């Protein structure tokens, strides 16, 4: 056996061939390039003031461009890489092919290593797309070559770290869905710990007001560790090595574990915990018992709301408590302190509520039809005399109830924010609650959850209906939400500014208000259009009306589209299929 045969990496070769044969690889690459170059175009437009300041004037302005590039790439790695990596070993488990791999002469270490490298290489090809942009940045000036090298090394290190976490999850968990969710949870916890540390350092520094350079020991160590390229590379390598060792150690042990419904197990454990707590504190009082009845007229609704973990009232009530508890604590703290110098005491809560709401709604709505497909019960349901509308609307009854539950924290927030702004903060002047902006914000904040959440539900359901599995549907829904937020915010104003020669920072900025992001966070995503609203209240109301008319139409169209297309997608015969069949190519 020669050296080449001995180290031929057959699994890596197979993985790369599979990726090359998969249409999805190329679609993703094109989408990635579109997002990256779209963002670059927008940033360039912003730097060059809508194209008015071109040429030599832009020299030395590469830093903002560079920062944007690194940020977009970092988010892409965090968002995309777990999705393409978490299935590396779980797919083998799901297809019962991991046993065949383990029977070969490939060691556990080799299997994990080759799987990891195949994913890192795939992500590397995405990052190569940014090289021309880095060249432009360097050409514009404002960034040192060492800075660019530092960024490239950091991005590669991030890639290796994220891929290692995902491979570890893929080794440990039985299904791709579990590995997918846990990869994001772990990375989210990492990210939050980092953000919390930065925020803590900032607050602590401000409070101390003595030494502005004061930082926590952890942060000090962290920043020191990331100061040189070698240090970054070494740490990423060490982290990767540890993950690989753990993964190869557990690959065999976790290869044949039975599939588990982890969500259900968590809920069941929570059930036992809360029941014990309830028994020990109240003696077992149950305000809203789950009735164990049989279905009467709407069987699917009955199953969705009584038998599914995410649909039952008690579980949804716990989600409500999870969201409300921190808000209630903050409200109680503010009221007890009696301070009125907080201008924005609930900063962060809308983002937290939206984060949880989008995740819960996406997971629930995208899983409605795939769950039937996995259990092979969809056909059985389709041959019953229920109409397509009955099936779709009843299937979504659990999600609709979840929407009602998720609306409660938003309502509490809106009401308390209104009271706070109107009566506490500016009560002395007695002008705030009469001002148009006060009512504008109140109306907007009330309408936002009422419109956006059903839209997310219908988008998730559409993707769950049309795509092969729930993971793809979840990714597609998240992508749709992100695109809906950034397209009106970044790309549309830029595109419109080109042919009409409109000034970017004036009238054209009103298009930003089509973005849900701008409407959900009007004060934090502070656009130039906001000043226009302060001067022209009629325009502000017009923008709000147009926005919700647009999203109301989208909502109606999505609902109509699903109800009309359902039978066609699931291939169920309907009387009105006749027209379509006359054109069937046979």
């Amino acid at each position, binding site marked *: 056996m020669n050296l080449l045969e001995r180290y031929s990496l057959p699994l890596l070769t197979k993985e790369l061939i599979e990726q090359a044969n998969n249409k999805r690889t190329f679609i993703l690459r094109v989408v990635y390039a579109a997002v990256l170059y779209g963002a670059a175009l927008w940033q360039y437009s912003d730097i060059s003031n809508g194209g008015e300041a071109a040429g030599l004037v832009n020299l030395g302005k590469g830093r903002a461009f560079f920062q944007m590039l690194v940020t977009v790439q970092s988010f892409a790695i965090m968002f995309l890489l777990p999705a393409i990596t978490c299935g590396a070993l779980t797919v083998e488990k799901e297809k019962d092919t991991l046993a065949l791999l383990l029977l070969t002469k490939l060691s556990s270490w080799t299997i994990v290593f080759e799987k990891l490298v195949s994913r890192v290489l795939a992500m590397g090809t995405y990052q190569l797309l940014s090289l021309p942009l880095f060249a432009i940045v360097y050409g514009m000036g404002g960034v040192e070559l060492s800075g660019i090298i530092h960024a490239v090394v950091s991005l590669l290190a991030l890639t290796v770290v994220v891929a290692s976490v995902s491979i570890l999850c893929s080794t440990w968990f039985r299904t791709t869905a579990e590995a997918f969710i846990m990869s994001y949870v772990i990375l989210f916890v990492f990210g939050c710990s980092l953000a919390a540390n930065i925020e803590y350092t900032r607050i602590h520094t401000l409070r101390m007001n003595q030494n502005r350079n004061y930082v926590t020991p952890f942060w000090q160590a962290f920043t020191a560790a990331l100061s040189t390229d070698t240090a970054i590379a070494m740490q990423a390598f060490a982290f990767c090595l540890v993950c690989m060792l753990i993964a190869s150690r557990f690959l065999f042990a976790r290869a044949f574990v039975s599939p588990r419904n982890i969500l259900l197990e968590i809920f069941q454990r929570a059930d036992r915990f809360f029941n014990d707590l309830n028994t020990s504190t109240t003696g077992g009082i149950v305000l809203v018992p789950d009735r164990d009845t*049989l279905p009467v007229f709407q069987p699917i609704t009955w199953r969705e709301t009584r038998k599914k973990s995410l649909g039952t009232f008690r579980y949804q009530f716990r989600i409500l408590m999870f969201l409300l508890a921190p808000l209630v604590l903050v409200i109680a703290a503010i009221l007890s302190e009696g301070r009125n110098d907080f201008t924005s005491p609930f900063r962060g809560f809308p983002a937290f509520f939206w984060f949880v709401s989008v995740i819960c709604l996406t997971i629930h709505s995208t899983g409605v039809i795939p769950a039937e497909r996995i259990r092979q019960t969809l056909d059985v349901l389709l*041959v019953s005399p229920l109409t397509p509308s009955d099936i779709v609307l009843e299937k979504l009854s659990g999600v609709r109830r979840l929407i009602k539950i998720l609306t409660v924290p938003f309502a509490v927030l809106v009401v308390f924010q209104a009271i706070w702004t109107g009566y506490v903060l500016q009560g002395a002047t007695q002008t705030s609650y009469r001002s148009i902006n006060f009512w504008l914000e109140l109306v907007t904040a009330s309408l936002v959850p009422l419109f956006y959440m059903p839209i997310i539900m219908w988008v998730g359901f559409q993707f769950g209906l049309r795509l092969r599995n729930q993971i793809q549907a979840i990714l597609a829904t998240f992508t749709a939400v992100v695109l809906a937020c950034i397209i009106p915010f970044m790309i549309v104003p830029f595109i419109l500014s080109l042919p009409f020669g409109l000034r970017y920072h004036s009238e054209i900025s009103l298009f930003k208000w089509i973005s849900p992001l701008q409407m959900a966070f009007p004060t934090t995503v502070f656009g130039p259009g906001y000043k226009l609203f302060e001067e022209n209240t009629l325009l502000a109301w017009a923008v709000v009306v147009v926005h919700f008319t647009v999203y109301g139409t989208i909502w109606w169209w999505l609902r109509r589209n699903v109800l009309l297309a359902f039978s066609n997608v699931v291939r169920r015969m309907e009387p009105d299929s006749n027209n379509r069949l006359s054109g069937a190519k046979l």
Partner: protein
Amino acid sequence: MLAVDVQELKVRYGKLEAVKGITLQIPPGEVFGFIGPNGAGKSSTIRVLATLLPDFLGSAKIMDLSVRSQPQLVREQIGYVPDFFGVYEDLTAREYLHFFAAAYRLPMSRRKAVVDDVLQLTDLTGKIDSQVDALSRGMKQRLSLARVLLHDPAVLLLDEPASGLDPRARIEMRELLKALKEMGKTIIISSHILHELAQLCTRIGIIETGKMVAQGSVAEIYQRLGVLKIVHVQVANQTPELIAKLRTIPGVTHVDDQVDRISIRIEEGKLEVEDLHDFIHAEGARIRMFQPEVMDMETAFMKLTEGQTA
């Protein structure tokens, strides 16, 4: 009125033509067995009748109702058991049946009695409060049959109901289908367990590469294939002359001199088995074994098909 009337049915998946003009007429009360290799077009035909395949050409009717223009009414008349279980494992057997009773809009006043009846028929009364998840494969399949009986459909479409079941469960399933046959249900059943179909079906259709190769009663199929009957003979004093003489008998198409026997292929109708016996005896051969081969469905299937798929 025919229970099932299919005329020139064609189904295409992209470039693949799965069903190429099948015609099928099944009177009420018949049990029609659909036999064919994998990919022959059995499941596609059954799915068209179950209103689950809208893209087809030709006509398909159930109880005189057009599958194309009256699918909602057709669904009231059929009970479909797919080639997988199709059961909600998070429910009990009682909840599962009540779920479909509600889906089929059974009046509330009748539901409990109907559920009890179908459970008794399928011998699952003792499992009424068991989680579906905990039932054996055979029980799950019987539960699927209980489900399709809830709304008392005229036609049952069973796509390989015995697939994956152990011998005992298969026998139980066969007995259950016999009971349904006695109740006057029209049943279309596809299966790979060919000899079971022979015991159960009144008519057989053999399908290959999307075409119906043979169709008729079990006796008709046997008769049609009988022209190739084989008789196995063992004689104590076998000679080459005897073999040569056997080859000259009118109606004998082939004589195979094997180690332990002589296999004689005869054309039924031209030569009776009894005449062959008399001829051998007359030649002075001392017959140790004389065994006409019993024509079973598997032999018929193998003879009629070439093992191709659509």
